[in-house]
Every structure is written in structure tokens, then in C-alpha cells.
């Protein structure tokens, strides 16, 4: 029996040692060998699920193995720093998230879009201003009017100070000349729970995150912060339609490689990712999960990153949250 327990443990050690051999993919050559997708968030979240399913679809398309590695922590900074410092051979690809454009300005970590070469963006979920169904306002106009009469009275739940949904609420306040009490929670989920319990009056999280309650008639979404309407909520107007110049405020996800990666390699990766992202299968997956499908190629993604960096820089300066590094 002693033998069996020892065997059991050695097997176990063997298994666990198999999982981390990606760091030094040999050589700087893109051809051959598996790819690694770094996810800067914990396993099981939206970013993880999107990356994993895109990865498994790309495996078939590229006919090579793709491993997903979660490196969460530090407001998503740790995984994104690790990804930017990987060998620039195209074999380590990082799924970057909106925080990439903010972390440096917030003074939290030395990482910015300049450390990456964008390959393709696959997802954008804009902020949606959502209130309980029985709230005394039915449109954005009425909501803003109420807020003007009652400054600081409306409590807006967000996913943490300095998080994208907090910025969204502040951006709305500064664009519409209104002020709110912003209540930070540990993520969008808890903020939505607080809205369901009537502890806050509104949330500014993504449409996808409130969709179940909007569909069941508990919540109503007044407007979304994007250039076009959200597919899942075709009746909800954008801020722009309502006469406010807010642009796109939301969370987004896209694949990037270290900035020194050869152009040729980026092109090859871009082609494979776009081919998969454009497929019917991926579209279905995104719709089922409630994720906004927004595909941008390398060039468009770069332009979008510049635009976002500028926007956050402006917003954080205005909010007095910008830290000089």
C-alpha cells in the first residue's frame, strides 16, 4: 500500500510539472510549436471564457496547440506586464483589457499600450446606465433632469474606484453637468446585486452584466455609452443620440504581442485571429454569452488604443486621479 501512495504522489507531481513549460518557447521563430495566450484575469471570468473559446477555435484553424495561462492580480497589471516582457516571437499572445490604457495614469503599474503591438480586437462592452424598473425616470433625459434637481442624491454602484465603470459614471457626470454619489463594489457582479436589493439607485456596468434582470423586467437600461446601439438591447438609445458627446466608454478585449515582434509574424497572427473571429461559430458563442462582438484589425485596434489612452488621460486628469510616474 505504501507503494501505491507514493506512486499516486509521484504521478501527481508529474502532472503538475507539465503545466508550466511555456515560458521559454525555444528560438525566435514563429513557425512550429504551440502558442500561449496569457489571460490577466482569474479563470472563469468573462475575459477567460472569451479567450479560451477563441483559442480552442483557433487551434483547429491554425492546426497548432494553444495553451491558456491565467496570470491574475494587481488590477490585471501582472499578467499584462508578463505578456509585454515575453519573447517577441509571436508565440506568447496576451489578451489585454481596458485597464491597459489606465494603469500607468493611475500610477499603479508601469505598463501602457506602448508596450504592445496590437493584433486584433474581438470584444467591446459599453457602459449602460441601468436603474430599477420602478424608478421615477424612464428616459435618460428624465434621469438627468432628476439628477440636476437632486445633486449627489442618486447613488451609482460601480466596480471599484478607478475602474472602468467608475470612470463611466464620472464621465456621464462631467458631460451632463450632474453629480452623483459613487459607491464602489468588488466588481460589476456585486454592484448589480446591490441594485437588485435596492441599495443603490443605478449602475453603470456593461449591458451584458445587467441583461438577465433587464429581460426579466426588474431593471431598465436608459442609455449606452457607445457609438452604435448594443445588439442585445436594440431599443436602448446611445448617449450620442440623446445629444451628449461621450464617445465610447466601456470595457474591451483584444490580443496583443510584445512591441518588438516582427511585422510579418503580427500579420500571420492577425490573419488567423480575424478568420476565427469572423466565423459563425464565434459569433454564436459571443451572442450566447452576451458579449459584444466588435472586431478590429491591427491598424484599427492601434487607433482605438490611442483614442482610449487619450480619453482616460483626460478623464483621470479631470477627476484628479492622475498620478505622475
Amino acid at each position, binding site marked *: 500500500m505504501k507503494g501505491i501512495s507514493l506512486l499516486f504522489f509521484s504521478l501527481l507531481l508529474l502532472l503538475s510539472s507539465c503545466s*508550466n513549460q511555456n515560458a521559454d518557447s525555444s528560438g525566435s521563430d514563429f513557425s512550429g510549436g504551440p502558442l500561449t495566450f496569457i489571460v490577466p484575469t482569474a*479563470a472563469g471570468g468573462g475575459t477567460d471564457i472569451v479567450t479560451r473559446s477563441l483559442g480552442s477555435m483557433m487551434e483547429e484553424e491554425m492546426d497548432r496547440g494553444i495553451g491558456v495561462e491565467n496570470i491574475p*492580480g*494587481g488590477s490585471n497589471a501582472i499578467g499584462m506586464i508578463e505578456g509585454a516582457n515575453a519573447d517577441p516571437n509571436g508565440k506568447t499572445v496576451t489578451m489585454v483589457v481596458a485597464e491597459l490604457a489606465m494603469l500607468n495614469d493611475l500610477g499603479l503599474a508601469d505598463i501602457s499600450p506602448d508596450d504592445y503591438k496590437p493584433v486584433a480586437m474581438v470584444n467591446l462592452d459599453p457602459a449602460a446606465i441601468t436603474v430599477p424598473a420602478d424608478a421615477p425616470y424612464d428616459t435618460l433625459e428624465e434621469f438627468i433632469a432628476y439628477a440636476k434637481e437632486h445633486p449627489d442624491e442618486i447613488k451609482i454602484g460601480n466596480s471599484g*474606484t478607478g475602474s472602468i465603470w467608475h470612470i463611466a459614471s464620472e464621465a456621464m457626470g462631467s458631460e451632463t453637468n450632474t453629480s452623483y*454619489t459613487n459607491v*464602489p463594489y468588488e466588481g460589476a457582479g456585486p454592484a448589480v446585486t446591490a441594485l437588485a*436589493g435596492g441599495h443603490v439607485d443605478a449602475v453603470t456596468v456593461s449591458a451584458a452584466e445587467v441583461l438577465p434582470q433587464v*429581460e426579466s423586467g426588474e431593471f431598465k437600461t436608459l442609455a449606452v455609452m457607445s457609438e452604435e446601439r448594443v445588439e442585445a438591447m436594440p431599443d436602448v438609445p446611445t448617449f450620442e443620440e440623446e445629444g451628449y458627446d461621450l464617445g465610447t466608454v466601456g470595457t474591451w478585449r483584444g490580443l496583443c504581442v510584445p512591441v518588438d515582434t516582427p511585422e510579418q509574424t503580427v500579420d500571420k497572427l492577425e490573419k488567423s485571429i480575424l478568420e476565427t473571429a469572423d466565423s459563425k461559430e464565434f459569433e454564436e458563442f459571443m451572442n450566447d454569452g452576451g458579449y459584444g462582438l466588435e472586431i478590429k484589425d491591427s491598424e484599427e485596434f492601434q487607433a482605438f488604443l490611442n483614442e482610449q489612452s487619450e480619453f482616460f488621460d483626460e478623464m483621470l486628469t479631470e477627476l484628479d486621479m492622475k498620478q505622475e510616474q
Partner: protein
Amino acid sequence: METLTYVFQFETILLLILGLLIGLFIGALPGLSSVMGVALMLPITFGMEPINGILLLIGVYFGSIYGGSLTAILINTPGTPASAASVIDGYSLTKKGLAYKALQVSTVSSAIGGVVGVILLILVAPQLAEFALRFSAPETFALALFGLSVISTLTAGSYAKGMMSGLAGLIIATVGLDPISGVTRFTFGNVQLLGGVSFIAAMIGLFATSEAFRMVEDKIRNTDSSQTINKVKLKWSEFRAVFLTILGSSGIGTFIGMIPGAGADIASFVAYNEAKRFSKNKKEFGNGSLRGLAAPEAANTGLTGGAMVPLLTLGIPGDAVTAVLLGALTVQGLQPGPQLFVSDGSLVYALFIGMLLANLFILIIGFSGIRFFTKILKVPGHFLMPVILVLSVVGAYALNNNYFDVIVMFAAGIGGYFMKKFNFPVAPLILGLILGPLLESNLRRSIILAQGDMTIFLTRPITVVLLALAVLTLLSPLWNIRKKWKPDVKGEI
């Protein structure tokens, strides 16, 4: 009938059992938590039939919570935070040579806890969900404080040392990004510390690594610590004696499970505390009490049923595991929430039956496996020690694929070794580390919500009751000490 044919299919049952076994394995490894287990299995379920996929994940979830207790009891190493409280009396029983009986109690309590949780879920889910939603920041703050007050019963002899250990945990918990204003605290510019000190890495160090160090010391001093296993089985009369504790703790677990933000770690500590409060023989707690083991074991599985309440009825996940399950349901095209019972009613009831079956299988797997599990105690210390060390390193690294957590683990291991050496209990430190962020963020969130009005803590009935319980628990040991007129006490109060 449609429901029954849904569940009782060869493939479905097989996947459920497979899930349980995978979960058992993941749970037993320190560092691999329930959330990670469920998340890792998630992509595999995408192509399956909805009920098969969901039950596979449920199996992993339930199995991992049970598996975490096995190592907690046998080698003083909780596999998941849910089992941290089971160490206290579980490992004491093992040291007395009663590992066999301890595993029996753990298995029975886990199974009953799970069944009670599911039954409560079936019977009163909608009403419970309404109640759970009334928990806002002040209530959660009061619950966290109540959980923290449990420290006063984990003192292992010295009230002062227990409090110091708990406060140390609270202080370490302040490292990282401040949860409300997003300011960095005590990170010294290190990005790795932005998210704070990982409490799972710290837990592995404090319990497992320090235990390995102790084994080295025993080896050097030649005090052989290899355990004896008496095959003493649980007697019917003993089971009857702990039965009420199991039922009560299952209820506590279910209740805490449905509250958003509160997890199995709090549930098991609170259940331990309540079991001790209502016990006539308080002294046996911490020295191998069957009640002290049954309570956290029933609570951490009772929790699983509770955690499903807000998920299924409102579409709101109460903790990290149910957040992953929410993802699994939506990818399958199911929208949790009030309509789920109408649109996919038979699937929901199939899920309930599957959950009941999962608990039955835990009973069967547990009882047929005890003989095998206890074999680990026959492994001599000089084999076990390096295995525990390697598992600690692998577990800490696997948390976030990050070497920094390994450093945290070793630091906690060295700290834990000296704490044990000088009779400081380590459980309060873990409790402080887990509850610190919950306590702080909800205190400050309450004040924001009330716009500075502190009376918010006195005007809400649930808050007041929980705060009163917390103060009572915190101070009752002092009262007992005072009654005995110990001369050294006055200085402490």
C-alpha cells in the same frame, strides 16, 4: 417524469461521479480551490448537453469542498479555505489515532449538510432570495465582524495570543489596493502586492509548510511523530449526539451561502463557534471534539445549496464559484433568474435531483475510500515531509502562475512554524486575513451609502442583531475569565 429521465441516464450519472472524483482530487491539493477546479473544467462542458455539463461542474464543486477536508484532517493541511476550520478538531482527532472516526464524521456531516442545503434550496428558495437581497453593506459588515469575533473561541488557551494573531491577520490584509478609494498601501512600489497578500498562499504556508518544518525538527530530535491509526469506528450513540449540531450547522451554512460575498470559510468558522457556544463541554473543542469537526464540515457543504439560491432565482452569483456556474449556464443558453423555473423547469428540478445524488455519492465514495485515505498516515515523516513541501510550492505557484505567491507561502511557513512553537494559534490569523477586506470595504461602503451618517449601523434590525452577537462572542471569554478571578486578567481588560 421528464425530470427523472433527464438525470437517470448512464452518461449523466457517470459525468457526475467523474466530476466528484476530479473535485476530490483538486480539493485535496492545497492551492487548487473549488473556483479554480470548476473554472478549469468549464470549457470542457461547452459541447455537452446542458444537464450533463452543469452536473459535471456541480460534481467538481461539491467534490472539491469534501476533498479539502480530507487533507485538513489527515495532515493538518486544508486543501481549500472552506476546510480551514476543520483542521482544529479534525487534526486533533488524527493525532489521537482517531483518523478513521474523524473521516467518518466528516463524510456523514458533509453529506447531511449538502442534503439539507439542497432541501432548503428546493423548499424556500424564492423567500430566501428575497431575504438575502436585504443584505446591504451594513449587514455584510456586521456579518464579517461576527465572523471575526469567532477568534475569541479559537484562542487555544490564551485569549491575548489569539487576539494578537487575529490582529496580525487584519494588518496583513491592509496590504495592497485600498478597496474603496483605490490607493496603494504598504506595497513599496511592488506590483505583485497590488492585489494584497494572497490568503490562500498564506494559508498553505501557515498550515502545510510549517507542518513540514515541524516534521524536520521531529526528525532531527528523533521524536518520532508517525501516527497510529486505531480503527475505531463512529458509534451510533456518538452520531446521535452530534446529529443536532450537524443539522444546525447545515442551516447556518445554507444561510451564509446565500448572502452575497460571504463564503464557505466564514460559514465553517461561524458554525464552529455556534457549536461551541451551545455545547456543555466547551473544553473538548480544540482537543478532538466530534462536534467541533462535524460543525464546519456540515456548514461548508450546506453552503453549496445556499449559494445556488440567489444564482437560480435571481440570476445573481453569491460567490466566485457560482459566478463561474452563471457563465456555464448562460453559455448553455440558459438564463438564470425568475423565468428559469418556468422556461426550463424540468431542467432545474433535474439539477436539484443531481445535487442530491452528488451528496449521496459523497457518502458512498467517502465511506469506501476511508481505508485508502488513512493509508497516507502510514507514510513515514521523511517521505511525507518532502511531498508536502513540493505540494505547497506547486499549489502556491498554481494559484496565479506566479512565483511571488511561492515566496509568500514560504514566508508564512516560517512565520507559522514560530507561531506554533510559541503557542500562537494560526487560525485567527487566517480568519483576519480573509475577513479583513470584507470588513473594511463594507464598513466604508456603508458610510458612503449613508452619506456619513453612522447611525446606519443602529437603525437596521439585521445589522443590530449581528453586531450584538459579535460583541457577545468577542467578550464572553473575558467574562468567563473574570468569574474565575484570575489575577493576571485585569491588565488585559
